């Protein structure tokens, strides 16, 4: 079975720097024989987590909207690429809206104890964070990592790699960046090969 790759674009800006970087990564996975799919969050209608904590008791989310089936697709993927530009030193509200809604999976794992990922499972499921930022600061991505880490942990993915590029303002966009797009493509090929290798090793 081909490696299932799911790319999620959290940018409100269609075909901007971040989505273009994600597209290059997905192209790379296709080159390596995967069948990538892409979901654009701004095309979906969904509400953020209401903080009602009902999922802590039931393991289910009371909100049912276009985000609900996406969680099943995420859980079916071998490789999950989550993409967001940096807005105000953090991920976009759209992507944070998705991540906050994963609370019910967290509740299934840690409160209801109805869901469990083995360490082998997690190793075979790779999470990649893709991001761009206008600013040149080296630390511009730092505050984005913890929420992404929490999301991959909750959903059973190993946080495998970052594909990040800052200084978009200086390069006048991702297409002016000297290495980012080629790197994203290469990493797309690499991650599919890595997952395939783990499959041949597993009993």
């Amino acid at each position: 079975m081909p490696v299932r790759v799911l790319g999620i674009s959290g940018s409100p800006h269609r075909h901007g720097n971040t989505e273009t970087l994600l597209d290059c990564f997905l192209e790379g996975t296709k080159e390596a024989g995967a069948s990538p799919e892409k979901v654009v969050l701004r095309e979906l209608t969904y509400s953020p987590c209401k903080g009602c904590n009902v999922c802590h008791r039931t393991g289910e989310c009371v909100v049912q909207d276009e985000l609900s089936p996406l969680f099943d697709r995420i859980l079916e993927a071998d490789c999950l690429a989550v993409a967001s530009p940096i807005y105000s030193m953090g991920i976009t509200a759209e992507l944070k809206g998705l991540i906050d809604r994963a609370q019910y999976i967290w509740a299934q794992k840690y409160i209801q104890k109805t869901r469990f990922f083995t360490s082998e499972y997690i190793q075979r499921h790779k999470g990649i964070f893709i991001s761009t930022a206008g600013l040149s600061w080296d630390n511009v991505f730092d505050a984005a990592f913890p929420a992404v880490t929490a999301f991959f942990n909750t959903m059973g993915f190993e946080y495998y790699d970052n594909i990040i590029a800052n200084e978009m303002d200086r390069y006048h966009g991702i297409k002016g960046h000297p290495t980012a797009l080629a790197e994203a493509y290469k990493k797309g090929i690499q991650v599919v090969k890595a997952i395939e290798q783990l499959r041949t090793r597993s009993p």
Partner: protein
Amino acid sequence: MAIKVLAFAGSPRRGGNSETLLDWVLETMEKEVAVEIEKIAIIEANINPCRGCNLCEKLGRCVQRDGMDTIDEKIVAADLIILAAPIFCMGINAQAKVLIDRAQVFRSRKYVLKLPVVPPERKGKRIGIFLSTAGQTWNYVFDAAIPSVKCFFNVIEVREKDIYYLMVNGVDEKGAILTHPTAHQDAEQLASTVIRDLRLRLGE
């Protein structure tokens, strides 16, 4: 002149822990003379997310017409801006991030169009407060929220050294903060300190 306080309750859960912390601060401030308080619950304020269109870099205002139109003016007019928001999944909750992202218009005014965000006599006098709560007990649970909060205050012309923080971890279920040993007292103390600081700055 009265001190103008603009407070944002950023949580989707009305009356929850972060909003209770905010209410304690505001109750103390209400007891002071010449303090005008306005509290806005972000989930009821009809604020759409930033579209990332960057048109504010040219227009100096947002192309979207929504609740942010009036909030924009209120942010400019306030002496004290308070943001209260819980930590969800190691970051500020999505609804509060919507407000922060929409402050991009102030960033455009300040850094791109080089326009004054506040009248010159207000510059360097405004204060910000960030109030937060988190279910986790980890002491680093607030770390990733702070850069976005600093960014928000910076673009709305509150200097980094003029931001006060009160962050309470280990409170998860609604009402958990009510039994916290110090949070209520800390909130009252913070409110008094900030009002005193503001009166000094405004020369009263």
